[in-house]
């Protein structure tokens, strides 16, 4: 339960899709002129992330990972299909988006009317593929957490686009320097909001851990460091043991 909560808040605030890793910026900038359309797109992103991340987690776990094919029989244990992940993830996303579009159109025309135009756009929104790829590199351990990760990073994206759309509606009344109008000022505001969101960085990291550098997705290096630490600990223990033995002798 605690890890769910932690992942939830972390994906919304600390690793916010827009402010920390700049995913889905294209549609973030293009569709944030009005709050109402921004809400529509944001909701669609939450929904599609919530569907595709767990699905891609299953694909990763039972098809792509090193040795994931072991359920087919022991002779398949050596296969590593990791290099196929891009093409499979994007295929899942494209088909899911199509499927979602058809289902929503059939069963809830009103929702389709509000989301409809955005759904096809979403297949090429980097936040969606980014969600799946981060799920893979961060090695999320089970499908519940994968679902949680999808939904909460979707919520983070939703909050970001909602905030910028509201600001852009208000900024029309301000006297912005002409060359900065439109795109330029949106960039700078997003930058400032990003700096604001940096302050969440210390929220969930313990006292001893260094703050996370979200850009570099340091997961792998962290892992190596952890392995090093563990090795060092083991070596220390070995030293201690041999020292004790020496004393006992």
């Amino acid at each position, binding site marked *: 339960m605690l890890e769910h909560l932690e992942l939830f808040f972390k994906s919304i605030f600390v690793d916010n899709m827009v402010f920390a890793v700049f995913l889905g910026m294209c549609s973030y900038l293009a569709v944030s002129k009005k709050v109402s359309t921004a809400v529509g797109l944001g909701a669609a992103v939450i929904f599609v992330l919530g569907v595709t991340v767990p699905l891609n987690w299953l694909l990763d776990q039972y098809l792509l990972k090193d040795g994931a094919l072991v359920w087919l029989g022991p002779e398949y244990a050596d296969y590593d299909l990791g*290099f196929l992940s891009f093409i499979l993830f994007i295929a899942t996303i494209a088909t899911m988006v199509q499927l979602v579009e058809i289902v929503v159109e059939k069963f809830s025309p009103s929702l389709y009317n509000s989301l409809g135009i955005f759904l096809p756009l979403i297949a090429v929104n980097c936040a969606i593929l980014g969600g799946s790829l981060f799920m893979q590199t961060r090695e999320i351990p089970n499908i519940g957490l994968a679902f949680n990760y999808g939904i909460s990073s979707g919520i983070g994206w939703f909050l970001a686009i909602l905030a910028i759309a509201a600001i852009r509606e208000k900024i029309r009344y301000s006297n912005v320097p002409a060359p900065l109008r439109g795109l330029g000022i949106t960039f700078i505001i997003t930058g400032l909001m990003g700096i604001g969101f940096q302050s969440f960085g210390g929220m969930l990291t313990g006292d001893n851990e260094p703050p996370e550098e979200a850009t570099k997705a340091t997961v792998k290096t962290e892992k190596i460091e952890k392995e090093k630490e563990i090795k060092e600990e083991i070596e220390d223990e070995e030293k201690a043991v041999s020292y004790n033995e020496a004393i006992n002798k």
Partner: protein
Amino acid sequence: MALLNKKDSKLILDPLADNNPITIQVLGICSALAITAELKASVVMALSVLFVLSAGNVVISLLRNIIPSKIRIIVQLVVVAALVIIVDQVLKAFAYELSKTLSVFVGLIITNCIIMGRFEAFALGNGPKKAFLDGIGNALGYGVILVIVGFFRELLGSGTLFGFKVLGDPVTKTGLYSIGYENNGFMIIPPAALIVVGIIIWVQRSRNRALIEEA
């Protein structure tokens, strides 16, 4: 430009400035910002996009009369994904450290809007040679911005360029640091990239007033 006539060279030169994919068309920003803390990563990213976009444009342009328009997005995604897998595997084989720095952003070239945007807007309606030039031009326009942002962020943030200490050594206080210069840690954090791009847009639009948006 002996090989290219005026129209063709326009295809390459236009996206470099007045029709720049990042600052004017607002495409491909996602990956542009996240990896520009170092110049080296920016250059590699720009080269990867150059390869994927020019090759992809040619492939799509060759296939343009065969692809049924209803499933064209999926066809495009498959073509890009195949090209990106090649780039990713090459990077992993020859520049492993760098591919770790770029992490998921190599994969995200697939959903880079520049690529889908150029496929839709250009490759589907033009022959392979033109499409190739358009791909080169747009990828260069993207690369130029990436390199500019990477240059300033690395120079001001870490005092290095491609990892070389061009401003002297901050620890032993040589070069500029001996007179009290400090690195600006602000440039390293991700949001700084947004602000740098914002400033580039500002400069570009005050030089060319025709580009200013209506309020």
